[in-house]
């Protein structure tokens, strides 16, 4: 029994410490989801917030990435790749936990490729006011992470190393 428990916890530890473990198809309630933002209209620099418009569905879906067990650099790399593909500038991302989405009556479904991609679905059909309300509620819980903050941190740490 002890041997089994030791094996079980070691396996679990190994699994959690892997830097880029690919998540399964079932999305956990505590998973972190990033919404990459390619338009300055979808966030406010002054208030440091994601606007609800960033979470309004297009054809019943909102595209997000599952970013658990990824480093900040790895997360931005995914966003940069999407931006390159679409010939867009990546400005920021909105981070939110899966349960904050499902708590509003929506579902999150894995939609690969690309790896780690998922869609927020289950929006009330042909009911824009309700969609707006849900988007406001999600945006109220989302955290804005600006791309320029990362660039600034990297430059500052580079300057420190050079100095």
């Amino acid at each position: 029994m002890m041997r089994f428990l030791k094996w079980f916890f070691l396996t679990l530890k190994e699994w959690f410490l892997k830097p880029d473990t690919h998540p399964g198809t079932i999305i956990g309630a505590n998973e972190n989801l990033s919404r990459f933002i390619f338009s300055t209209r979808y966030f406010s620099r002054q208030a440091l917030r994601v606007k609800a418009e960033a979470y309004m569905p297009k054809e019943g879906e909102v595209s997000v990435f599952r970013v658990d067990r990824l480093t900040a650099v790895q997360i931005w790399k995914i966003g940069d790749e999407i931006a390159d593909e679409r010939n867009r500038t990546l400005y920021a991302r909105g981070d939110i936990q899966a349960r904050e989405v499902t708590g509003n009556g929506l579902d999150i479904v894995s939609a690969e490729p690309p790896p780690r991609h998922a869609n927020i679905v289950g929006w009330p059909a042909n009911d824009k006011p309700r969609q707006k309300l849900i988007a406001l509620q999600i945006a109220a819980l989302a955290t804005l992470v600006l791309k320029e903050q990362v660039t600034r941190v990297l430059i500052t740490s580079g300057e420190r190393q050079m100095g």
Partner: protein
Amino acid sequence: MNTFASVHPAMGSLVSAGSPGVGPDHQRLVELLQSTVERLLDSISLGKPLQDASRQLYEVLEQCGRSNWDGYGAKPVLFDSYERARRFIRSLPFGIPVPEVSAEPDGEITLEWFVAPTRVFSVSVGRDDELNYAGLFGASRTYGTEVFHDEIPEVVLSHIKRVVS
């Protein structure tokens, strides 16, 4: 009602005491006074915020006037929506702060009054007369649809007042 008052309601009190004038000089004076009053109203009383909102609105039209402006396949913001949003903003009564302006994936323009994440009211203005709105007022919430012609519907106005008060 004298000539001045019929030109601009705000001018009525300025000229109502005198006798109405005639001739080309009088007409030029009327036009001069009219443009001065309009400029004053635009640049002093509501002016700066209104100008900011108009500028934001124009920027939205410029930035979001093409398909896929958000990288997720958004529809373009059309000039009709811009015009309607401009009329909405100009119809706001005195004392109501102007909204933040943005756009949505379906090409409609968003006018948003934001105080805090859970104290926010948002109206979507598109090319037709429908206004779709939603708001959070702490634990309370609202959503619905109203029709906008030239006057902001009372229910929408009351929600705006509630969020900014």
